């Protein structure tokens, strides 16, 4: 059983092992896909970050962060509130700059191309790097089907031709299957998306992000507003995306990071403190600040 109830503050010092064990149990349940294994062995970079600084006005939210997110694996970013983990995530698809007074310095490299290079259109970047937010954001004027298909309406770098309604239906069905929502909505695809429950809405948003088949999927605390059952569904879905696309998930929940990710980065006050294999970070952290955080002594 997956333990979603335990909070970091109750784990105590001995909780280091307690935190790690569910992850092991979760993983043993599922065989890794051959593709994931191959990617893991190849150790290729899905998204590279080099000397990244991000600002809100005069606030220095992300400080000189460099790290490589492995291709087709899941990377978690953890840290206390306000440590800059969401800001870092929003820098990865150029969403950070949509906020007034926000600035970014440094490089984010996708397939050898710096997305902050002069002349790169942020809209094109976002088509290849999808994002799901903390709160579900279905478009209230659109049906369930149209929500999932929303990203298909814009010209996509991978799509060479205009899609017929039938093709769109197929893509929508596949995305909903992948987001484990198909069975619940297949009979009411034309209904308003706002009629779904919070957990369903969030899986709908994930399906919307998957429909365009991005190279990278960014998840910004995707289960923060969900109940435990919905959380479990979303976590299983994230886990299954291994081998399909590069996934980066920001989370407050350390157990969640342990359960779903291959690598984990710990951030504190805008800096990257430690970045290593998830098992190592939770059982044998190198930095004393990481240990203090995961054992619940602060944050």
């Amino acid at each position, binding site marked *: 059983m997956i333990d979603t109830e335990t909070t970091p503050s109750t784990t105590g010092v001995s909780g280091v092992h307690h935190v790690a064990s569910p992850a092991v149990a979760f993983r043993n349940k599922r065989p890794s896909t051959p593709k994931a294994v191959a990617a893991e062995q190849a150790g290729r970079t899905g998204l590279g970050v080099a000397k990244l600084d991000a600002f809100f006005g005069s606030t220095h939210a992300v400080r000189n962060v460099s790290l490589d997110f492995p291709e087709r694996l899941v990377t978690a970013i953890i840290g206390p509130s306000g440590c800059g983990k969401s800001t870092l995530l929003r820098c990865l698809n150029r969403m950070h700059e949509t906020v007034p007074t926000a600035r970014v310095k440094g490089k984010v490299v996708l397939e050898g191309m710096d997305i902050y290079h002069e002349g790169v259109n942020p809209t094109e970047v*976002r088509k290849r790097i999808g994002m799901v937010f903390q709160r579900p954001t279905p*478009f209230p004027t659109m049906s369930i089907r149209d929500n999932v298909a929303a990203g298909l309406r814009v010209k996509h770098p991978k799509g060479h031709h205009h899609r017929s309604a039938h093709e769109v239906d197929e893509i929508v069905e596949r995305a909903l299957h992948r987001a484990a929502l198909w069975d619940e909505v297949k009979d009411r695809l034309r209904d308003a998306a706002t009629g779904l429950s919070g957990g369903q809405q969030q899986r709908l948003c994930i399906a919307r992000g998957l429909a365009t088949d991005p190279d990278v999927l960014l998840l910004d605390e995707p289960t923060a507003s969900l109940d435990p059952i919905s959380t479990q569904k979303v976590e299983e879905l994230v886990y299954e995306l291994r081998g399909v696309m590069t996934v980066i998930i920001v989370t407050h929940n350390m157990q969640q990071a342990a359960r779903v990710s291959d690598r984990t980065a710990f951030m504190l006050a805008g800096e990257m403190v430690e970045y290593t294999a998830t098992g190592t970070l939770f059982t044998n952290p190198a930095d004393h600040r990481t240990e203090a955080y995961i054992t619940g002594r602060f944050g």
Partner: protein
Amino acid sequence: MSTSALSFTARTAATLGRRRAVNYVMVGVIIALTVLATLPLIVIAFYLLKFGLGSVKWHFFTNMPKPVGESGGGMANAILGTGLLVGVASLIGLPIGIGAGLYLAEHRGTTLANAVRFLSDVLNGLPSIVMGIFAWQFLVRPLGHFSAWAGGVALGAMMIPMVARTTEEMVRLVPVSLREAALALGYARWRTSLTVVLRTASAGIVTGALVAIARIAGETAPLLFTAFGNQFWSTSLNQPIAALPLQIYTYALSPYDEWHAQAWAGALVLIALIFVISLIARFATRGQFGGGSGD
């Protein structure tokens, strides 16, 4: 609040009684004022029905005005004229107003947006006869004749600030998270504004547009020296055209009893029209997104 239990028990029945009495009196005063506030509308409706209903026959809607002394006259031309004038005004006022409102909401804080917002508030407060003078100066005088165009432009100019400000308010209610969700899907900014933001706010914008239409439909002053009025059937936008408010004005000033009755009937029809538009405006927002759920 650290009132002790003792001070509650110490309240005498007399104190409580006095408080209740004051409460009843004040609630009574508030109710009386509320009734007073709606009284003008009730009185107007009463008089319109009393003097106007008798003249609202089928031929009122289908017949042309008849000379004094002949019975069976109507205001068909004025009803058509008001429809055409409102149509022209909407064609001018809605696109400009909605576009300006979208700009005000999406670029809030910029110098231009602040200036436009201030000026549109000033424009909103401008006496409507000034709008008539404006249209007369720029359309009637250069062209040398009154026209429906000029009247429509005057009314359209009145609509712009009303529509712009409601659009701005409604667009502001759209949560930032929806905008971000669209941007994150690779929507360009213009596409986000048009397909997500405007569509989400559309119910509220429709309401604002209908309220603006209801307001200008009854305007007389801007039409006095633009549309001018016309005793004959005219569908040409280049000619002077009749309008319900103008016809009412002319008939009410005349010395003839038949025309007075017609003026009452016209006023009743006009009020009923505005009432219906307002009702539609209310139902347009019902059950839809457009208010309250700001993030």
